[in-house]
């Protein structure tokens, strides 16, 4: 139990610290690296909760794909972050004020947390006890039955995101030479190689 609590605070504090570093690091590459650290710690928290599937997804998708993509983008785009931050101080006072008020209010709210007494009855779609089946299995059973509608809708959202990415970025450049493999491999030898019988010693 102690170890669990220790692990929780370790992960949680590290995640928060990493989050702070993401926005405060001067070097954008460092920011992204801290972001990856934050993801890892979040994954750790999920593991503590017994949600190992989500933890793995987090690592694979966010760390493996998203964060690395960010890294590439940050490195490839020439963005002067120092310039972007120039306006930061100017708006700091009022921004801080708004932030502090918001935080104070949220503290108030969470201070008054009362679990709805009926929550136990209406809790959405209870799944089987985690001990009996694996995470993945349980998720799959819910996603493909109770929540098929949402799952499909999410799929459509992703489809639209994909279409959008293609629409906004795909360019056809007629003047660019492209490699056409099928053409390459279907070319007969005669078209490509001319065999000349060169007599030795005569030159061309």
């Amino acid at each position, binding site marked *: 139990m102690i170890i669990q609590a220790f692990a929780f605070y370790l992960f949680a504090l590290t995640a928060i610290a990493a989050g702070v570093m993401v926005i405060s690091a001067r070097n954008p590459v460092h920011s992204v690296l801290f972001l990856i650290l934050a993801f890892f710690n979040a994954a750790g928290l999920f593991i503590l909760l017994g949600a190992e599937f989500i933890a793995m997804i987090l690592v694979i998708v966010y760390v493996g794909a998203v964060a690395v993509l960010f890294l590439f983008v940050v490195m490839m785009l020439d963005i002067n972050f120092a310039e972007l931050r120039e*306006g930061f101080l100017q*708006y700091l006072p009022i*921004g801080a004020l*708004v932030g502090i*008020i*918001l935080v104070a*209010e949220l503290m*108030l709210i969470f201070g008054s947390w009362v679990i709805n007494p009926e929550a136990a009855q209406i809790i959405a779609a209870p799944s089987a006890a985690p001990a009996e089946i694996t995470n993945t299995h349980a998720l799959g059973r819910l996603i493909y039955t109770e929540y098929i509608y949402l799952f499909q809708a999410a799929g459509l959202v992703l489809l639209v995101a994909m279409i959008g990415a293609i629409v906004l970025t795909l360019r056809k450049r007629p003047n660019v030479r492209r490699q056409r493999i099928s053409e390459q491999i279907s070319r007969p030898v005669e078209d490509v190689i001319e065999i000349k019988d060169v007599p030795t010693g005569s030159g061309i």
Partner: protein
Amino acid sequence: MFTATIFLPLLGAIIAGFFGNRLGNRFAQLVSVLPMLASAVFSCVILFWVGFQGQSQTIHLFTWIDVGTLEISWALRFDTLTAVMVFVVTVVSAMVHVYSIGYMAQDPHIPRFMAYLSLFTFFMLALVTADNFVQMFFGWEGVGLCSYLLIGFWFQRPSANAAAIKAFIVNRIGDFGFMLGIFGVFYAFGSLDFDTVFDAVPGVAGQSFNFLGMNVDIVTTLCLLLFIGAMGKSAQIGLHTWLPDAMEGPTPVSALIHAATMVTAGVFMVVRLSPMYEFAPIALTVIVFVGASTAFFAATIGLTQWDIKRVIAYSTCSQLGYMFFAVGVGAYPAAIFHLMTHAFFKALLFLGSGSVIHGMHDEQDMRRMGGLFPKMKVTAALMWIGSLSLAGVPLFAGFYSKDIILESAFAAHTGMGLYAYWLGIAVALMTAFYSWRLLFLTFHGKTRADDQTFDEVHESPPVIIAPLLVLALGAIFSGWLAVEYFVGDQMKEFWGGSILMLNNVIEEAHHVPDWVVWLPTGMAAIGIAAAWVMYMAMPGLPKQLATAIRPVYRFVFRKWYFDELYDMIFVRPSFYLGHGLWKSGDGDVIDGVGPDGIAAATRNIAGRVGRMQSGYLYHYAFAMLIGIVGFATWFLFGFFQ
């Protein structure tokens, strides 16, 4: 026929007014003159029936207003008083209509003029035939309106516009009193019907009510308020300033409105309300004072004026003063008698002076006239007749009516009556003087006109002269024809119930000492003689005299400084106030805060809102966050309260 008499002029006015421009000048003249003549003929018949046969009657036309306890009908009340007034109004009006054909022949707006004239006549008839206060007020305001329109008829002339506005405003001041009086009558009697009110007056007399915080006698207060209205309309001292200026209007208008009819509406009103005034002795005393003072004051001014029409205008003012003090001493029939004779001879004088002006090509200043007698004999003769009548030379109409008034004043045996009598005698002297001053300056002596003008002076055409002849007949004969009926032995039978007199002053007036009777006549003779001396025999004398008593002369010549005084007390402060209200009140405050201010504020806000839209993403995001925080805070505070 009764109804037709009243509404024929309206018909003429409508047709001439709305279709005159399309159908031509000749048509407009015909369509207004013919009904008017018919109306005049009818009025003679009515006078015969009602006055001499005693067939008083009230014709109920329709119910006009019926609200709660206030019920007002449109009714034509024909008693002797009305019949006399209808007779005077229609006859003079008919003559003026005919005269206008000739006088206004060159004017480009003939249909409009004829329509106004007829419309005026209709309103005047509505006034005199009124059966209740509201109908009377309708006619009262109607004639005021027409007076305004006619004074300002030559609207291209700024002075005419100013005079029209002045007439209207001064009249409105009087009307305000009149309206208050009407309200008070309704408050006190619960009705506006003449008969109902008159029946109730004896019961109310002597009671008091709260007016403007003071406990005052009801009938006296109401009578005084109504008299303010009469003062305005009849140009009595204080509210007289509009009348001389009203001479800016065309001369027929001056004759009809400002001599014969409209200005006498005040006198008529007081006489009509005699059942009320008889129970308000204080009010009558005030009337005597105002009337006598006006008579004297206007006569003095008349002595000095140079404009031929202004002299007659002040003379009118003065004669109206006579009528009022006659009313004030209780000699109502005498007042109406003088009203009638005055209508004839004053209309004659005005139209005659119009004829002179016409002949002199719109010259009105007597200093540039003189010696016109050989050129326009008929006009001069007619003017002589009018003046003789005005001055009260025996056998002419004015003699009878003026005498009975002065005798009544004397016979009243009150301090105020004597005040009126002696002022009246002085006025008789001055009247004779300025009348002959006018005649001498205009028609006799050597001409002071330049040669060309003098050569072109001509007698007026028959269409102008003919009405003058009719009026001259009235000026000569109306006195001795009517004296028996109006103020003589047959007075009681003639007037019937139309006039209430508690003390029979007229009866007593017949028994005054002989010197009282002949003094005015003597004064007239002296006045005429004095005028002859000063303007025929020794033409240099007036100037010397004026120089000798220069301050007095100036005071009188400047019309007792009434205009200047009013200008200083009322007009300028009003202008300042109006200007101030316009510039700072309306311009800065109302426009500034209202339309302009709202518009400017709108644009200002629009500009600010526009600047808020900076285009920066983080501004937008920030605005959203602030919105969220704002709402959340609002709720948290609401929640914890």
